[in-house]
């Protein structure tokens, strides 16, 4: 099988940082809030206000990052829309649950209709009238990573050439409080729990505006460490790189000791001593936070620099390849290798 190269043509975000902008690279917004909501862009630039009124926040943010990417890449109808969201339209789900607590009679279907996880991905297709492949992964902290994996697989198979891949998550006060009790977010010293929307265009064709190459992606179970090492070796080999070419590893460290120790273990296994980057203190923690890691790494490679705000031990260097490591419940992981063009 001939292996097509895959490029990240564009990537846009709405998060704690300035929306639809890379301003965070020079002027990062840091917050000490435990729960931080997304900074909303001007929706009117992208969505008819009458249409926007009928949409939940999650869908609006997903649509805006998607439409920006479609506009910037000129890809009107990508071959696939592949969505990662662990909890989907949480706000509407809880509103329907609240109504259900009152009574099972005389319920309005409005909130229910937007509650399934695939509402986001299908809203993107409905809005853009795109009939191509469309699916949604809801696999906790690896939801976005599986969406990337799916696009990768189908590009290898020659089934698709362009894919709009996104990670979208929202948060409510009630759900945050539950997650805080479980220890997942809201602990002292942790990155804020946050909302995020990140859309990117994967394309098998390289164009002038491409940010970087997606050189490899792999998923697995942390019980099988040897396989994880093999996956990285294969990934590097396919990209004609060696371990020494990896400029940095971007981890999902968030200030929670259990979570962070897990990453230290993985990095020691894979690439001991390599400079470490992190992004969750800037973009926040949530299930599809890994999308923000890919977004940040792609823009670093495109600009040929890594801002101090991402570095554990700041120094000046020109990144060639960044390995992204993401773990879920200290049981599962994803690896993604991004390289400069």
């Amino acid at each position, binding site marked *: 099988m001939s292996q097509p190269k895959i490029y990240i043509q564009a990537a846009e975000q709405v998060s704690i940082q300035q929306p639809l902008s890379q301003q965070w690279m020079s002027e990062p917004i840091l917050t000490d809030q435990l729960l931080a909501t997304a900074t909303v862009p001007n929706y009117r630039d992208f969505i008819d206000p009458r249409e926007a009124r009928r949409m939940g926040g999650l869908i609006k943010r997903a649509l805006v990052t998607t439409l920006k990417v479609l506009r910037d890449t000129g890809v009107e109808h990508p071959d696939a829309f592949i969505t990662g969201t*662990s*909890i989907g339209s949480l706000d509407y*789900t809880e509103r*329907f*649950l*609240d109504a*259900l*607590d009152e009574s*099972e*009679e005389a*319920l*309005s*279907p409005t909130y*229910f*209709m937007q509650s*399934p*996880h*695939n*509402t986001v*991905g*299908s*809203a993107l*297709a*409905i809005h*853009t*009238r*795109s*009939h*191509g*492949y*469309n*699916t*949604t*992964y*809801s*696999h*906790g*902290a690896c*939801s976005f990573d*599986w969406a990337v*994996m*799916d696009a990768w*697989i*189908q590009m*290898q*198979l020659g*089934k698709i050439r362009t894919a709009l891949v996104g990670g979208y998550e929202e948060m409510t006060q*009630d759900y945050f*409080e*539950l*997650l805080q*009790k*479980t220890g997942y977010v809201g602990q002292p010293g942790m990155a804020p729990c946050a909302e995020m929307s990140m859309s990117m265009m994967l394309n098998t064709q390289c164009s002038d505006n491409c940010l970087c190459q997606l050189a490899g992606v792999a*998923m*697995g*179970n942390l019980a*099988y460490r040897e396989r994880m090492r093999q996956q990285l070796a294969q990934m590097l080999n396919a990209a004609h790189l060696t371990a020494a070419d990896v400029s940095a590893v971007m981890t999902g460290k968030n200030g929670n000791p259990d979570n962070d120790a897990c990453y230290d273990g993985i990095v020691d296994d894979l690439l001991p001593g390599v400079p470490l980057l992190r992004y969750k203190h800037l973009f926040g923690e949530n*299930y599809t936070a890994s999308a923000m890691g890919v977004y940040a790494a792609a823009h670093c490679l495109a600009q040929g620099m890594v801002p101090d705000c991402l570095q554990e031990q700041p120094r000046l260097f020109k990144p060639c390849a960044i390995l992204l490591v993401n773990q879920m419940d200290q*049981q*599962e992981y994803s690896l993604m290798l991004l390289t400069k063009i």
Partner: protein
Amino acid sequence: MIEPIYITGAGVVSAIGVGKEQTLSALNAGTTGIGTMAYLDSCHRDIPVGEVKLSNDEMVQMLGVDNDPLFTRTALLGRLALREALDQAGLTRDMLADVHLVSSTTVGGMDRREQNHAQEKTCDRLHAVMGTHSCGNSTQMIAAQFGQFASLSTVSTACSSATNAVITGANMLRCGLADIVVVGGSESLSKFHLNGFNALMILDRQQCRPFDRDRAGLNLGEGAAYLVLETARSVKARGVTPLCRLAGYGNACDAFHQTASSPDGEGAYRAMSEALEMAGMKPADIDYINAHGTGTPNNDLSESQAIKRLFGPEIPPVSSTKSFTGHTTSASGTIEAVFCLLALEHHFLPVNLNWQNAMEEGIVPVAEPRQAELRNILSNAFGFGGNDSSMIFTIDHA
């Protein structure tokens, strides 16, 4: 044509039984599993549902595990079906390092969250874990009993979820990422989605009547089903006998409306066409269509249009087995796939129960059970948001 993908194991749980044997006898006898609510705690007792006739405690006992307050009904159903699929394929705990699992659900842990939601503000950690049990946690909980899979993944595209899990798994095999992938879905009934569908006014107060002129909506059901997909190389190396082949599949988006299908069934038409093309088949090669056939006025008309567009005047026998199980939403794709496997193996056309009068512009389903030598079956699953998917199962008769 694609390189062959074999199915070497299958497990199923639905309102018509636990396991393939009970399922087969109910399908042959034309015995529906839809009836009065016995396990779901809802005030809508007048709405018929396709419940699995087991309490959670009974399922825990059947699984031979210690009870855990965190168990969800979705996970227990999933475990029963997954166990049967793994057993049939001869996959034991020590082999799972090379076996991937792609599971699907939308309800996930909603059955537990809705019980506690009113007390969540003051709940303890255990109930917080319960309240935040996600679709991915559901897959982890289903898998945990059997060992450490090579990877876990969760697809959630509402009513087409399980079919899309099959597609992901099949693509993983074709890409060389795996030799064995177990795919499927699990979904329990919940007050949440029963009330949601009820508010949408698409639940029939009687037994659902797919493709009937007087159809008045769907009945919700629950269950789980898993298929073991395997490459030719692995089948040969392990010396296992395949049940049938997954010959093709398609996924397309109707891109029309969040909860309604387009009048011309564009998404459905594209999904079926793509599956045929991948299988290298013509419409005339299809011997039976297991329709999505929910029983709602909208779906059955839209699906009829799509089938007529693709098949022209020569429409193969069609039936909706949702008249047996109710609409098992995220599990329906693989539950119905197992029905197709049974039809291929035992040479019969599953009947479309409760059908009496032809609908205008609609297809006429198989209303009487009959024997038939089947080679190729097309199975449809369409979801909210227009996430439409189809797959084709083929048996290679010696």
